[in-house]
């Protein structure tokens, strides 16, 4: 009964919306829907054209898996360059997560405890690197690695170091936000009950931080997977090419649906990772009884 009434009401709302979209606050709904359509539909068409049966990325000719598996030379499965780009992207993203998350968590914990001189300024430098245009950091590192730090050189190592550098602030910000919402009480209680600081950290603080650590790993994975400026600048040759670089190169010269196809694959990968992280984060945040409210307070906005 109530279900029926609510569908009736929503149908009426929909009818009102169509007949007079400019009444307040309906026009806000128009804006909301228009915004979502505008940001998402182009990407969906790009994903659609990865299934095109001809070479065009703007003229639809029919559904095929040609650009994923069937084409013997140019599909993602059979083109060695594209396959290599996918592997390189995954390799860099995994490496960046493994290196930057521990450093970021440690740095976040340190900033939380460290109240003295220098904590403010190191936080400042970190946020500074967070909002400086990536091009500036990338070119600086490029000059660093080709001249004084020639032993690093360009290539996968340099790409990884660059990504870690710009990924760390993400982990620090997420971890600090969670620490702020937890407060010092749990750790103090543990130490009152006889735990050493190290024990309190390992047995109490880190498990409570687990959702934040997981969330930062997912965010960093998704963002390093798609990074372009840094990996392009620090790449040495074709063997360092990532998916973003492959899309860029092909889009400038000869776009083919195979490029849409690897883009779509990456899209699915990061969506999956983010969705998984969201579920884990939600579940453990609910179990520990802390909401997102206090965490939002700590975001640098």
């Amino acid at each position, binding site marked *: 009964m109530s279900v029926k009434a609510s569908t009736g009401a929503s149908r009426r709302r929909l009818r009102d919306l169509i007949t007079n979209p400019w009444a*307040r*606050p309906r026009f*806000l*709904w128009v*804006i*909301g829907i228009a*915004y*979502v359509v505008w*940001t*998402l539909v*182009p*990407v969906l*068409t*790009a994903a659609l054209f990865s299934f095109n049966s001809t070479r065009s990325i*703007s003229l639809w000719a029919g559904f095929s898996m040609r650009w994923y598996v069937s084409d013997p030379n140019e599909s993602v499965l059979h083109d060695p360059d594209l396959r290599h780009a996918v592997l390189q992207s995954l390799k860099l993203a995994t490496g960046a997560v493994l290196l930057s998350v521990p450093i970021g968590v440690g740095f976040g914990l340190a900033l939380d405890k460290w109240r003295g001189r*220098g904590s403010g300024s*190191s936080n*400042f*430098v*970190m*946020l*500074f*690197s967070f*909002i*400086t*245009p*990536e*091009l*500036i*950091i990338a*070119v*600086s*590192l490029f*000059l*660093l690695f080709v*001249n*004084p730090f020639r032993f690093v050189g360009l290539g996968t190592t340099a790409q990884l*170091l660059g990504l870690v*550098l710009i990924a*760390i602030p993400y982990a620090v910000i997420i971890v600090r936000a969670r620490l702020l919402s937890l407060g010092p009480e749990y750790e103090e209680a543990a130490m009152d009950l006889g735990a050493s600081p190290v024990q309190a950290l390992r047995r109490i603080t880190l498990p409570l931080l687990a959702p934040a650590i997981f969330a930062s790993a997912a965010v960093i994975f*998704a963002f390093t*997977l*798609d990074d*372009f*400026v840094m990996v392009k600048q620090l790449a040495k040759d074709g063997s360092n090419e990532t*998916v*973003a670089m492959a*899309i*860029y190169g092909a*889009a*400038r010269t000869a*776009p083919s649906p195979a490029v*849409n196809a690897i*883009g779509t694959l*990456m*899209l699915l990968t*990061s*969506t999956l990772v983010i969705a998984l992280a969201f579920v884990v984060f939600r579940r453990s945040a609910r179990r520990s009884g802390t909401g997102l409210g206090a965490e939002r*307070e700590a975001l640098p*906005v």
Partner: protein
Amino acid sequence: MLYLLVLFLLPFYVILSVTFGTLDPIFQSPVLVWNPLRWDTSILSFTLSNLTHTDGIYYAAFLRTIAYVVGATFVCLVIGYPFAYFLARHAGRAKGLFLALFLAPFWFSYMLRMLAWIGLLQDQGYVNRVLQDVGILGAPYPFLSGKSWVLVTGLVYGYVPYMVLPLYAALDRLPVAQLEAARDLGASPARTFFRVTLPQTRQAILAGVIIAGLPMFGDYYTQQLLANTVGTRMIGNFIIDSLDVPIFVSRGSALILVLMALLIVPIVYYLRSTTRAARERAA
């Protein structure tokens, strides 16, 4: 802490040493000069004079970059504010869904999003075909032939989520009771918005402008993909291109230095005001 010193401050010192360094007499490649007392300012003054004189090589690109970024940031705000307002206050039961749909582009590859527009804007792409079918256009409009407005629209498309995020966070935090109080005291909806809502989101507008606007200064790929002509080149393009030619590397690093000097003012202002606002909230 050490990582910051090694990986953040050192590169800036390298930028300085390259800018103020000399050229190798044989290979014409930059030679770094570490000692600040022996720095040579000729490259920097060369770059600066080319930025400030109307016939300099960087002058037009410099002004163009500022115009594009300011324009695109403004459009981002105009689009982003109503959407953030809708998301925070009027989405109702669909809020979770809209929030997820809004956040999706954050983990979509920027390149894929631009590639999508290349497909749509080509001569036989959907945009041209729809416009022709409706009868607005007689022949395909060459969107991708280096139009400034296409580039600015592309920048808006790429960076608008970064504008919405802080605005949404602030609008969502706004106590509803306050708005109701304003209405109860006789303020019209418009007056409530301008006297209560807008002033309280000033900090978020600043954050959005910084977070969405600053990265555009380092953007060169949007130009390359959507409007690849000499007439739309931005300062980022000059920086990237200079790195390919050894004799120009020091010019590129001088441009980086200028860009940094230009951006440091809004960055520091923004960081100071956010720390102040956070402290006030905590108190």
